[in-house]
């Protein structure tokens, strides 16, 4: 009988990529999210368990007969009150962990982010450092850092827990990073911060899904359980090249201007405060976290991840850009 995997946040960018890879590898997938599952996922034969992960009873219900969990549901906005990040990313994660343990699930893959350990210094071929809630920048990173520590602390015999940190996921179907870059480029508002020379590595969306599917298979392997693993394409590029090529794939111009780093970061701080105080909805143009992310090198040593997960990225950057361009190409 096929292994049954519960994926939370199934309609999200990473969650849906994970579902596609899990189905492709022969798993039976149960997807849990508040809204309806996108039809292309439903068409794959995925079972829907609609519900809120904050609802313990609903989660316990969805956990029945499940072998492994991929917990991808999270609040990913770049701004908002701490209480909302805490409720979704910390408290609800605890709920999902409790339910999984209670239901006798043996493997648990927590979807995290490299930003949980990014405290502002350049990361140059770095390893997956332990999550650092006090050092992490911004509510999102801090709440994910707390949740990751909580999840990994549950790792024990019979309940293997790992944390997968996909780094800057982009690609066809990405409504977060990719869509934002393209929207700004089309509006002529795409800028680089500082020289744009910081090297970053990124993850094509399908590769993130594959890595998660491999992690589900290998959660119990020594070095995987109890540990965070950063996942990326392992192809660092400058920020300006990534922005330019994503924008150009969508037929929009790349960044034309540059904002000095100090200005962007200071501006970001002011904006964050204003947004929070005013309770303004929508997305601010910049935050200090974003400024740092776009001005500081962060790329990772992928040797251990690839060995431990027995995984290599299937879609290289060049192919990723081609796929993106094809998806934006005018039909007909």
């Amino acid at each position, binding site marked *: 009988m096929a292994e049954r995997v519960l994926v939370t946040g199934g309609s999200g960018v990473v969650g849906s990529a994970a579902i596609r890879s899990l189905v492709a590898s022969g798993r039976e997938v149960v997807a849990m999210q508040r809204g309806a599952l996108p039809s292309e996922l439903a068409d794959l034969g995925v079972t829907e368990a609609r519900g809120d992960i904050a609802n313990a009873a609903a989660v316990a219900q969805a956990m029945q007969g499940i072998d492994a969990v991929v917990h991808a549901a999270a609040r990913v906005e770049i701004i908002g009150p701490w209480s909302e990040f805490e409720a979704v990313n910390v408290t609800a994660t605890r709920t999902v962990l409790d339910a999984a343990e209670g239901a006798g699930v043996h493997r648990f893959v927590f979807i995290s982010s490299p930003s949980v350990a990014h405290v502002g210094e*350049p990361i*140059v071929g770095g390893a997956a450092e332990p999550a650092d809630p006090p050092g992490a920048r911004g509510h999102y990173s801090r709440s994910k850092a707390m949740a990751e520590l909580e999840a990994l602390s549950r790792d024990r015999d019979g309940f293997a827990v790992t944390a997968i940190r996909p780094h800057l996921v982009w690609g066809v179907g990405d409504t977060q990073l990719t869509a934002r870059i393209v929207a700004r480029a089309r509006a002529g508002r795409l800028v680089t911060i500082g020289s744009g*020379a910081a090297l970053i590595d990124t993850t094509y969306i399908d590769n993130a899904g594959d890595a998660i599917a491999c992690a589900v298979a290998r959660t119990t392997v020594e070095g995987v359980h109890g540990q965070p693993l950063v996942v990326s394409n392992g192809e660092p590029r400058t920020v300006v090249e990534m922005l330019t*090529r994503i924008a150009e794939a969508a037929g929009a111009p790349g960044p034309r201007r540059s904002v000095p780093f100090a200005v962007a970061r200071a501006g970001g701080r002011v904006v964050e405060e204003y947004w929070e105080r005013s309770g303004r909805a929508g997305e601010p143009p910049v935050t200090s976290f974003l400024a740092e992310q776009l*001005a500081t090198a962060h790329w990772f040593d992928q040797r251990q991840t690839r060995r431990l997960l027995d995984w290599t990225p299937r879609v290289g950057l060049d192919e990723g850009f081609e796929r993106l361009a094809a998806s934006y190409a005018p039909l007909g």
Partner: protein
Amino acid sequence: MTAPALVPPPDLPGLDPAWSRLVDVPGRGTFHVLERPATGSPQLTVLAVHGNPTWSYLWRRLLAHAPGTWRVIAVDHLGMGYSERVPGVRRLDDRIDDLDALTDALQVSGPVVTVAHDWGGPISLGWALRHRADLRGVVLTNTAVHQPPGAPAPTLIRLARMRPVLRALTERTPGFVRGTTFLSRGMPADVIAAYRAPYRDPRSRRAIGDFVADIPLNPGHPSAAVLDAIADEVCTLTDVPVFLAWGSDDPVFSDRYLRDLVTRMPHADVHRYEKARHLVTEDAPACIPDIVEWISHLAEPARSAPASAVPLDSMDARLVERAGDTSVAIADLRSGLRVSWSVLAARTSEIATGLREMGIAPGDRVAMLVPPGPDLVAAVYATWRIGAVVVVADSGLGVRGMRRALRSAEPRHVIGIPAGLGLARTLGLPGRRILVGRTGPATRILAADATLSEVARVGRGTAAMDIAFPGPDDDALVVFTSGATGPAKGVVYTHRRLWALRDALRDAYGIRNTGDNPDALVAAFAPWAVLGPALGISSAIPDMEITDASSLTADTTAAAAAAVGGTLMWTSPTALRAIVSTADHLTGSGRGDLENLRLVLAAGAPVPPELLDQAARLMPRAEFATPYGMTEALPLTEVRIDELRTARGSGVLVGRALPGVDVGIAPLGPDAVPAVDLVTTPDVTGEIVVRTPWMRERYDRRWATQRRADSPAGWHRTGDVGHLDAEGRLWVEGRLAHVLVTPDGPVTPVAAELAAQRCADTSLAALVGIGRPGVQVPVIVLLAPGPSLGLADVDLTQRVRAAVREATGLEVAAVLTMRALPVDVRHRSKIDRTRIAREASAFLAGEGDDG
């Protein structure tokens, strides 16, 4: 004024608290020592002794690096470090007695190697001389046993010894402790703090003042007799291996103290660490590992095979043969001087006799600060004739490099033009100063003892002396590496090796000095004119700026060829380009003179094919060849230009080994460390290792460099990486130090650079690695106008990436541009990729909190 012994605080950087122990020696006091015991019974014991005002912390890396089979003990003298503050003044003999009693208490038994720094030197030597039966070796770092006569004591010591200053500087204030930790090139703050930790208050510093007061600066001093006895007795340590590991820039124990120690122990191995100051173990990270390596090598059997016998020869043999020949031996088109064989032979012989008369002895080093020309040639052959050693610090090193080179080689005498003697004077070079040029006011200002002409006159007026010829294994020449990546290294050639070099050139290039069509050399790379007389061929130096090959023209080259009937030309790509670009002005007869050239050697850097085509039109009869080699061994291989045109492969084709040259490859491991064993398997990339009778004898006063280079024994590790192809031809892929280590393994730079250069249409590109070895990503840096360092645009980046991928399979992360790439002064072609990597890394790290 007393205080008990203590253990150091547990958090000093690099210090393992488990090493600390307190040893009570009845009747003397309690010592704090660092001890790293051996596992099992020790193979040997290392006894490390600090100086003033440091403490055993100085040796923490020695304890950390030493093999487990050694017992390593580093002591704190009584009153110093964390040892007991005992009452009374301890003099040198007390301190030797202390050490003696301590090693008894620690039950130290042989074999023992002593290691010491600063005033720990005399104490450790005092101990060593009392324990000769157990003594296996002696290591000394920046120390002294004797104040060289006529020379002032170190300034810092003299200052500290002035009576009102002494206690104030050494005890009441932390001035002396601070001063000493500042005698380093810049230690981290926490290490400086660790050095100062035991000397925080005046009471804890009393022994520091006593130590300074105990330095015998005059014969009546209570410790003078003890120190003199040690200084005399170390001369008897002829059967004990000695290693002198020396910081070159120590304002306290400067090179003259090294010279004094070498005079007393001529068999000592020396390694002089460039730019390291007094605390050499801190300033030169290699120092402690090298000391460990030196001690380890004592257990090995001797490596050097006895040298084979060769028939006695002399560099001036051809010159002497032609002593009756009135044809031109050397034509200097710069001065217009033409000197015949008979005049050159006579003048060389006169100068040789004159130099002997002036007291220049066989083995003395003589620096030649003279541009190529008849004077240099005569001075060099005269110096060789009397068995003295020629030191050539050429202007290609740059002024700073020349100064460092001369200081490191320590010539005893100088022959120089006014600027050269001026340099010798500012460097305080000792011995005779001989001026090349006319006497005049300058003679006195430059403190010249004589002009070269006066030396010749002295020689002429002296009854013919029977001057002994130097032996084959006597030193003949010290030259310097170009120092493209770090300080220039002195390279020593013996006479035997120079004879072999002369014969190799003759055989490799079919050089004939007799018969109907004797060869003659156009030295467009001027230093090679010096080898003309050894080969017995005439040579001509074109009218050019010696240090600027681009000042050459087709006209001046043709004139030089005409002056001697030139058939050979030694040149460089830059010189060749200059000749080609001025060919339009050439007259008919000038064309004829260039057409007589039968062989053109271009050395220093690869020659672009289009330049060769143009040169070939100008010199249609000439065969073009580029010899591959380096300061330590040249020439090694040769490639005929026709092969270069069609050559496609990873790297630069340098051709086949010349007869008499062995080439091996030391394959690179996954971490880019070359293997010990050599292979000749095709297409295996590794360090290029060579062996030939005309390679260097050794590096000068760089024991550790020599040891690493001499592997296997009798071979030379070139520091270049490359491979042999199926036809046995050698390809150079870059410098070992510049190899990237990516997650997929080592990557050599040249193939990617050539692809990038072609794609971006630039003359220079560098491939560097960003990140730690093992996870490095490749980045291309192009020479291009624009900012000093900037990003290439996304379009060019993608084109260069595709070109590099196509040529090498390598995926370049980013493409940068630089307005000027750092290159060496001598060739203007060797890229300092290490420096570029440093700058590119900072640039690509972005602007985070550290940026």
